[in-house]
């Protein structure tokens, strides 16, 4: 755990916050998270998990790095954070967990974000925009590179929310050269309906599924729907899940996610057929097929 300082706080209408913390140097995979808590508070008592949106290496007066998180005002934890002023101290632990897996075979990332699920997906888009696309020899034959020889993967983002206020970070995604599709439940911007409908419609228009991977984050019900679509279209799908966490690094066993058991496990377990993985350590990014939705 490091004690860091709030560097800035920016509010987005109505209840979203972008918060920056000064930090030691920190490199992360998109989908990884930090545990954050205002130092010294006992109520809220536990730290909260926030996806790392990005780490800036810009030097500021303190030198070093800045970790950015993006969150929605929900309850005690987020409220306590949103009340901090620059210079206030925060306990920060991370980066934690396993982020999204980007195999060399990826050619097109289909990002699906619902509401405040957007940060890890933006982080992935930005990482993909930065990194060159180099194919390993062994996989070269199998991959059908549709994007030009620029060495970049294609990124298509589907972003949904209740209203236009809840479709977030579109500029960031576009800056990262993602093609962005938007859906809102009230139709105030983009498609009127659910973001999964957009995904499904998009997939129907695709002739080849090779090199496609879905990366999703958002409400549990949305992720479940995405997983079903991925299953139907036979496309690999990684979902970033949430659970109530106390520690964030595998110590409390509080953050379990029910997963499907392998046959071997079912034989081994004499007492039960339930099986859990830890969201914080085995995830938060999981292969969607693993989850016992």
């Amino acid at each position, binding site marked *: 755990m490091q004690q860091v300082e709030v560097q800035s706080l920016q509010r987005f209408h109505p209840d979203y916050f972008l918060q920056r913390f000064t930090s030691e140097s920190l490199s992360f995979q998109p989908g990884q998270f930090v545990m954050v808590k205002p130092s010294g508070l*006992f109520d809220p008592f536990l730290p909260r998990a926030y996806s790392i949106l990005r780490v800036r290496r810009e030097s500021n007066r303190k030198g070093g790095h800045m970790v950015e998180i993006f969150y929605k005002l929900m309850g005690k934890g987020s409220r306590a954070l949103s009340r901090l002023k620059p210079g206030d101290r925060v306990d920060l632990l991370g980066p934690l967990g396993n982020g999204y897996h980007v195999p060399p075979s990826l050619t097109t990332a289909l990002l699906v974000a619902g509401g405040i699920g957007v940060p890890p997906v933006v982080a992935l888009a930005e990482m993909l925009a930065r990194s060159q696309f180099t194919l390993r020899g062994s996989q070269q034959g199998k991959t059908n590179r549709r994007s030009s020889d620029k060495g970049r993967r294609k990124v298509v983002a589907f972003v949904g929310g209740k209203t236009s206020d809840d479709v977030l970070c579109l500029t960031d995604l576009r800056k990262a050269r993602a093609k962005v599709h938007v859906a809102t439940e009230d139709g105030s911007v983009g498609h009127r309906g659910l973001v999964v409908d957009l995904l499904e419609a998009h997939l129907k228009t695709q002739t080849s599924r090779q090199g496609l991977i879905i990366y999703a984050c958002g409400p549990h019900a949305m992720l479940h729907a995405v997983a079903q679509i991925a299953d139907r279209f036979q496309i690999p799908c990684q979902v970033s899940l949430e659970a109530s966490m106390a*520690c964030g690094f595998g110590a409390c066993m*509080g953050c379990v996610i029910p997963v499907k058991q392998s046959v071997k496990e079912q034989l081994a377990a004499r007492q039960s057929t339930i099986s859990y993985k830890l969201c914080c350590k085995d995830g938060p990014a999981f292969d969607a097929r693993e989850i016992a939705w």
Partner: protein
Amino acid sequence: MGVEIAGIPLKNPVMTASGTFGYGDEFSSFFDLNALGAIIVKTVTMHPRPGNAPPRIAETPGGMLNSIGLQNVGIDLFLKQKLPFLRTLTTPLLVNIAGKSVEEFADLAKRLSDAEGVAGIEVNISCPNVAGGLDFGTDPRLTYEVVRSVRQATPLPVIPKLSPNVTDVTVIARAAADAGADALSLINTIVGMVIDLDSRRPKLPGATGGLSGPAIRPVAVRMVWEVAQVVKTPIIGIGGIMTGNDAVEFLLAGATAVQVGTANFLDPLAPMKVLAGIESYLTLHRFAAVTQLVGAAIPSETRSKSNVHSPRPKAK
């Protein structure tokens, strides 16, 4: 900073509480585990347990509820997969066990006695999160029976872990001491509940959970204080220790050593900070040895216990 508890010499009095430190491996990236007084691992049961359905954690003011349900790999896999790493440490390892019956407790103790690298056994008769988990620790006769049978099953030091969910903890402590306990750990969590105001259902699927953290510290200190005055058995104080000063409070109340639990979640370096804090206290108040603090808050008239305890056979 050395202390001896249940015949086990410790570098210092700071241990990790069962269920809050995994099997140690999660923490080895944060600090050198050899700096700890002792390591206590998550409760091990005879068979693997998947644990309770999520959510398992609920926050409370100054504390948390948990309902993990003793998720663990079972004694077989523990010995095979977890012990080898823990054995590489110089820090003594105390294995916490829970059985479904008096016999199962004894069987678990036997299995551990044959294993290499186990310094002692903490006997969990106080887990509130499994059906029947509390029964042994809330009835003095059952406490006596379990401790007696574990005592007879193993040459290792036996350390029952007591429940705070009782009318009079000294009655249970006496029963455990009479049954041959080498030390007593107290306290486990207090049964509590949080209701979700949106769903209007208990936050935890099993309704209740175990309350831990600073919120329960005054209760834990009181119980250590009470028990220290009625038994000579050394005590390991547990409950809401976040800082060195908190640990000192337990020592003054009569504990010979302490365990850091929930604090590990907020800061994986917590045990090291607690240790450093105790050292600062000793320096500031000019104590030569940490043992001088043990029970110092107890008026000498009522200080029945000595913190020097007849040594027990060591771990192999």
